């Protein structure tokens, strides 16, 4: 498991103008078919450093799973250059397999008819994991993911959350350098989600495992990833800190004002607008990049103010706004991050 000679840690995963075009045949009439192309991934470039934990988000059909499939080597890019740990995934899929762990939330790597532990025994042989390391890794997963009761249960009898934990453990027995997670918390309850997140955080902190995480649950990203990449229509729309999304996403903060009595909507000119009125309480939206202080001063001066608070923009709302605008808000990122 030696590192390939020429991989720099800061570009452990490296994509340069990667594309994936699917040929799709569509029926257009009786026996008539029309061929057209779907650009699932359209010239994406980014780097991920060793030990980083990066969120990869975007609306349905954005191209996230397609990217991950190319990163595992099971799909060949239609264009561009792709390297993971110095390896070209689709050319050396088997060699890469030793270095990566993969969890596709909607699929399972486990054998349906067999007890969970039997799947792990097969992994043990398949990845040629030294016995001591296999035991240590398995014990660790059993403890942290709370699986001791599950080992003898046939996989088809596991609940979704139990199976997902089983799958995550299966992806880590061979100590991969990189872990791809495609919607690992899909369908899990709050407790299971918390458990999985805690486990991933520890894995990343202690082992330095590089993690690329796809999810529709932004809490996953908020709790785990300092860096996030947003993809839409196969193009990378944002790559940077999660907090930075607020600025580019035209997000707004909200000033919640409690007045003495019911009044017509507060008028502060173009700097803020009332988005909601409920009795004596009013909600004012203003750009997240502006200071709240002048607004507060003006409200306090002109209106009978009882109480007020400022709400930070909700990341969900920011992203929703971004998806809805179809990326018009953002310029696609240039090649490097």
């Amino acid at each position: 498991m030696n590192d390939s000679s020429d991989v720099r840690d800061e570009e452990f995963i490296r994509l340069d103008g990667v594309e994936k075009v699917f040929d799709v045949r569509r029926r257009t009439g009786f026996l008539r078919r029309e061929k057209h192309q779907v650009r699932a991934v359209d010239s994406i470039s980014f780097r991920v450093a060793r030990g980083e934990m990066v969120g990869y988000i975007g609306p349905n059909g954005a191209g996230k799973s397609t990217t991950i499939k190319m990163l595992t080597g099971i799909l060949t890019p239609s264009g561009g250059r792709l390297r993971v740990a110095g390896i070209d995934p689709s050319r050396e899929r088997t060699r890469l397999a030793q270095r990566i762990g993969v969890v596709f939330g909607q699929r399972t790597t486990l054998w349906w008819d067999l007890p969970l532990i039997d799947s792990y025994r097969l992994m043990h042989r398949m990845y040629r994991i030294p016995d001591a390391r296999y035991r240590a890794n398995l014990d660790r997963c059993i403890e942290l993911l709370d699986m001791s009761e599950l080992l003898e249960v046939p996989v088809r009898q596991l609940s979704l959350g139990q199976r997902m934990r089983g799958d995550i453990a299966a992806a880590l027995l061979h100590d991969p350098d990189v872990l791809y997670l495609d919607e690992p918390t899909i369908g899990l309850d709050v407790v299971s989600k918390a458990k999985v997140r805690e486990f991933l955080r520890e894995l990343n902190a202690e082992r330095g495992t590089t993690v690329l995480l796809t999810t529709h649950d932004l809490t996953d990203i908020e709790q785990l990833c300092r860096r996030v990449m947003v993809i839409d229509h196969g193009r990378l729309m944002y790559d940077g800190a999660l907090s930075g999304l607020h600025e580019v996403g035209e997000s707004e903060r909200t000033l919640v004002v409690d007045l003495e009595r019911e009044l017509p909507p507060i008028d502060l000119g173009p700097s803020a607008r009332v988005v909601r009125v409920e009795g004596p309480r009013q909600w004012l939206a203003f750009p997240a990049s502006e200071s709240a202080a002048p607004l507060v001063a003006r409200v306090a001066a002109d209106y009978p103010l009882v109480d007020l608070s400022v709400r930070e923009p909700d990341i969900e709302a920011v992203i929703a706004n971004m998806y809805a605008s179809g990326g018009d808000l953002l310029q696609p990122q240039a090649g490097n991050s």
Partner: protein
Amino acid sequence: MGQGRLYAAVAVSGFRRHATYRVATAAGVFTNTVFGFVLAYTYIALWDERPGLGGYDQAQALTYVWLCQGLHATVAAMGRGMEVELIGRIRTGDIAVDLYRPADLQTWWLAGDVGRAVFHLLGRGFVPMAFGALLFDLAVPSDPLTWLAFLVAVALGVVVSFAIRYLVALSAFWLMDGAGAAQMSALAGIFFSGLLLPLNVFPGALGEIARALPWSALLQMPADVFLGERTGVGLLETYAFQGAWAVALLAAGRLVQSAATRRVVVQGG
């Protein structure tokens, strides 16, 4: 070879997976036994009419019936083995999971199928055969070497059967209707393996062709070895025929596999 242990483990798990389906096994044994009776009486009528048909006497013909009933699940003459599962995995995109593993796809599925075959030999082989021997006069070999030769022929038959079904399953990468291909291959298997009638009795060109097709390696050849029709050079020729088909079909499977995985389109998100 370190991977040898992996594929041994895969074979064991294939065995264990099928061992969990007890009701299906019992139902299979029951069906085979019933079919054995139907075919046995048909054959008796046939061989009364035409003694020595296909070069078999009546005892041999009856042995053939019960042997095939005990053996056809092992060599998956009627399909319904790994190909159904593999087609399903290709159709749903679960094949993605198999592809990013550091294991060879074909060897992996072969190992699992060998495990299945061993289970079916033990779980579904003996009962119909014992029933037949109890109620009819069968020509069961007394020489243990014949039994050994027979088992080798069965093993080769299993590999040929796998190689055919693997090719059929891979077609699902291109045809979205892999199930149709599997059904056609199962039909061909039922007819050309000799499950319904020994291929020896087929006349003329049809017989020549049927005996040259790979399916004859599944039941007809192991049965002929069992019945003592193939000994000495004849036995070696039988093995050579089975081995040649096994090698050719496995090689074709590898070729198709690499084409499929190179330009594969893995379905689903």
